[in-house]
């Protein structure tokens, strides 16, 4: 590392009003290296990258690009120095073509009109930089998230970006898509592009990173090589060692009563002939690739979507097709995949959000039971350790982990005994993850049953009693907790995974 860094944030600090978000942090990005930024939600990662991208101005310290101290008053100024950010929420116009998106803001013209052929040629050249082979006339809205991300990277490179800030690019990607992104990153690294990479997936760090900067509560904690063991990284990040990332305490299965029975459930084009049961005190997980039909299956069981044939029964009572209220009445609680889009009313208070499932059932003559609701919500918020100022605060202001706990809390208030969890810890930081796992233990210890879908294999392996693997809408196999390994699950989930990784 004797070379000079492309960009350095030197002893920077940032406060918003009385709150100090970043205190005396130094981080550098070198040509041809991937610098990883690691920290829990709220550790200051996004503030830091916004300073590098010209969105925020540091209150203390300074920014050095190519050895010269610079001021980045706007994102445009940062881009001119070759610093581009790939945000989690992509900045593409979905109704325009790839070519138009790549050249947005610098559309080539001829006699005042759009020069279509130049537009296409330049866009093709940009895509070639990362080896993306798609028709540049395709509408961006027709692409999957992974390809949209690559289009955005191509766009950044085509404006001569030398420093790429990648803000959780893998959060919405499947394992396979992540692999292709990493291949592109490896290629960029060979060509001397410096990258700042943020991810919640600890296992990705060693795979793609060179050096890791760990932040905690806005402060610089350590800079360590990316090969550092995960447990040590967690310890640095959280400030204490988490004894057990997956504290599964197996419930009393075996002779326990069967609670959920799904029989020959079929929904044309989504999943086919699915049968299984979940017993009291059991966590059954469904593993599989994105698109294998897992979310669709969970939604059908929860009554959200209809299905063509088969049946769902809770404690022997068969549920009607596609009725959410009937599922809830039978004891089913559904924690959906997209917390913000489907789980919460973001502008409503924590209190309201906790009470939606029980709004009608606790009412008297159509009148809301405000006192009781408030009492129940306060109790659950306390029990689940939901961190908030007041229970009347809009839930938007809470962190991802606390928002997710509120979705769980809604079903605890409703006394649900069958919880359907779809990616329960997505976008949740390490500390809150463990709290959610402990909550799952508490639910099964009390005789509840849990059906969980997750794309995080360690979570599936660590928290389940039994694992079903789905492939192309069918059950490809079942594994017990004892016999399940990452390889065993992946072999069932995708036969061709090894060839694709080569």
């Amino acid at each position, binding site marked *: 590392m004797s070379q000079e860094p492309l960009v350095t944030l030197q002893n920077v600090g940032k406060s918003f009003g009385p709150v100090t978000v970043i205190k005396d942090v130094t981080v550098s990005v070198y040509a041809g290296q991937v610098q990883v930024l690691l920290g829990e939600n709220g550790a200051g990662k996004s503030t830091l990258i916004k300073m590098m991208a010209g969105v925020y101005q540091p209150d203390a310290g300074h920014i050095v690009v190519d050895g010269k101290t610079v001021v980045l008053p706007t994102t445009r100024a940062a881009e001119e120095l070759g610093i581009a950010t790939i945000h989690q929420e992509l900045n593409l116009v979905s109704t325009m073509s790839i070519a138009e998106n790549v050249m947005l803001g610098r559309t080539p013209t001829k006699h005042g009109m759009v020069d279509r052929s130049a537009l296409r040629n330049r866009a093709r050249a940009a895509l070639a930089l990362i080896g993306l082979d798609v028709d540049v006339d395709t509408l961006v809205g027709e692409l999957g998230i992974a390809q949209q991300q690559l289009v955005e990277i191509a766009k950044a490179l085509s404006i001569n970006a030398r420093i790429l800030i990648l803000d959780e690019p893998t959060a919405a990607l499947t394992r396979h898509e992540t692999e292709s992104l990493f291949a592109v990153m490896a290629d960029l690294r060979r060509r001397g592009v410096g990258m700042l990479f943020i991810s919640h997936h600890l296992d990705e760090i060693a795979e793609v990173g060179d050096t890791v900067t760990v932040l905690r509560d806005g402060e610089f904690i350590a800079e360590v090589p990316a090969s550092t063991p995960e447990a040590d990284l967690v310890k640095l990040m959280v400030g204490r060692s988490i004894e057990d990332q997956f504290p599964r305490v197996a419930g009393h299965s075996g002779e326990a009563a069967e609670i959920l029975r799904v029989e020959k459930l079929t929904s044309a084009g989504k999943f086919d002939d699915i049968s299984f049961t979940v017993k009291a005190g059991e966590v059954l997980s469904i593993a599989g690739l994105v698109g294998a039909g897992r979310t669709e299956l969970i939604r059908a069981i*929860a009554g*959200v979507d209809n299905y063509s044939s088969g049946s769902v029964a809770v404690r022997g009572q068969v549920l009607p097709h596609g009725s*959410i*209220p009937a599922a*809830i009445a039978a004891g089913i609680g*559904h924690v*959906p995949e997209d917390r913000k*889009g*489907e*789980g*919460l*009313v*973001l*502008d*409503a208070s924590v209190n*309201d959000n906790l009470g*939606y*499932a029980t*709004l*009608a059932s606790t*009412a008297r003559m*159509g*009148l*809301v039971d*405000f*006192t009781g609701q*408030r*009492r129940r919500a*306060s109790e659950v918020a306390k029990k689940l350790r939901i961190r908030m100022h*007041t*229970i*009347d605060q809009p839930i*938007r202001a809470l962190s991802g982990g606390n928002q997710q706990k509120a979705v769980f809390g*809604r079903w605890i208030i409703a006394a649900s005994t069958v919880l359907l969890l779809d990616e329960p810890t997505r976008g949740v930081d390490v500390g809150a993850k463990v709290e959610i796992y402990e909550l799952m233990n508490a639910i099964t210890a009390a005789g509840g049953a849990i059906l969980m879908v997750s794309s995080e294999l360690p979570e599936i392996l660590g928290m389940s009693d039994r694992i079903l693997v789905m492939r192309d809408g069918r059950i490809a196999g079942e594994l017990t907790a004892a016999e399940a390994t990452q390889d065993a699950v992946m072999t069932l989930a995708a036969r061709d995974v090894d060839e694709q990784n080569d």
Partner: protein
Amino acid sequence: MSTTILPAKRRSFNYKKFLANNGALVGLVVLCIALFIATPDFLTAQNLLNIGIQVSTVAVLAFGMTFVIVAGGIDLSVGAVAALSAMSSGWLFASGGLPGWLALLGGLAVGLLAGTINGLANAYGKLPSFIATLAMLSVARGLTLVISDGRPIKTAAEVSFLGGNIGPVPMPIVILVLAALVASFLLNRTVIGRSMYAVGGNAEAARLSGLPVKRILVTVFALAGLFAALAGLLLAGRLDSAQPQAAAGYELDAIAAVVIGGASLSGGLGKISGTFVGALVLVVIRNGLNLLNVTSFWQQVVIGLVIALAVGVDVLRRKTRNS
């Protein structure tokens, strides 16, 4: 009843927060003081009663609109539905030979029906509320003209009573107060009212929590239709007749009142008290400009600017609060 948990926080009154959350009310007070200084005619009993009568129609329409906007929709048909309801009531009385009170109820039923159709088209027919109610606007106004053949119809005595007085108090003001209480009760205390906020805030999250989103939407539009019918009958009562062009364009006043009152057009936010203040702002401005002899042409310009200002301030306020 919900203040038991955090009594300590509630006791200290936060003026800054109150002002920030009640911008429309502050604006209204400033407006009234300015008019009081500008003209001696403003603060007279007669003028205040006038304002009360004028605000009654707009506010009752706007209460119905509040349900719709809180639930994330929009209702462009309320003015036309008001006219159709009043006209139907007049027709049932004059041509149908129904007793006056039955004709009055018939008018309300027509409004409820029109609103229900809006709701069914929106919730089950998947038409965006803007389109469904735009269609209803045209249909209702057209039917009003068909029924009346373009001429006013005399309404029943029971309807005229709505435009009259109880002692010194004009009946429209009494109806206004009752409507406000009922609307506020529905929105704040009942399951269906609280559900409207959830549906407007995030319909999918509401559905996944087991709330009957479609039924809620139908109810919301049905209520808007019912309140529109009441407003139409109030208007007819004042004139002793149902006019074919009555309440034309009132939907825009109603929307403006709701928005000035702090509701968000993207749904999930809004209060009856805010809507009432919003309606008062509109009416007081018109009244004041009349007293100051400003022509109705310029009044429209001023009202437009006030709407832009009120919403602009609100957007700014939310922005600063969120960051």
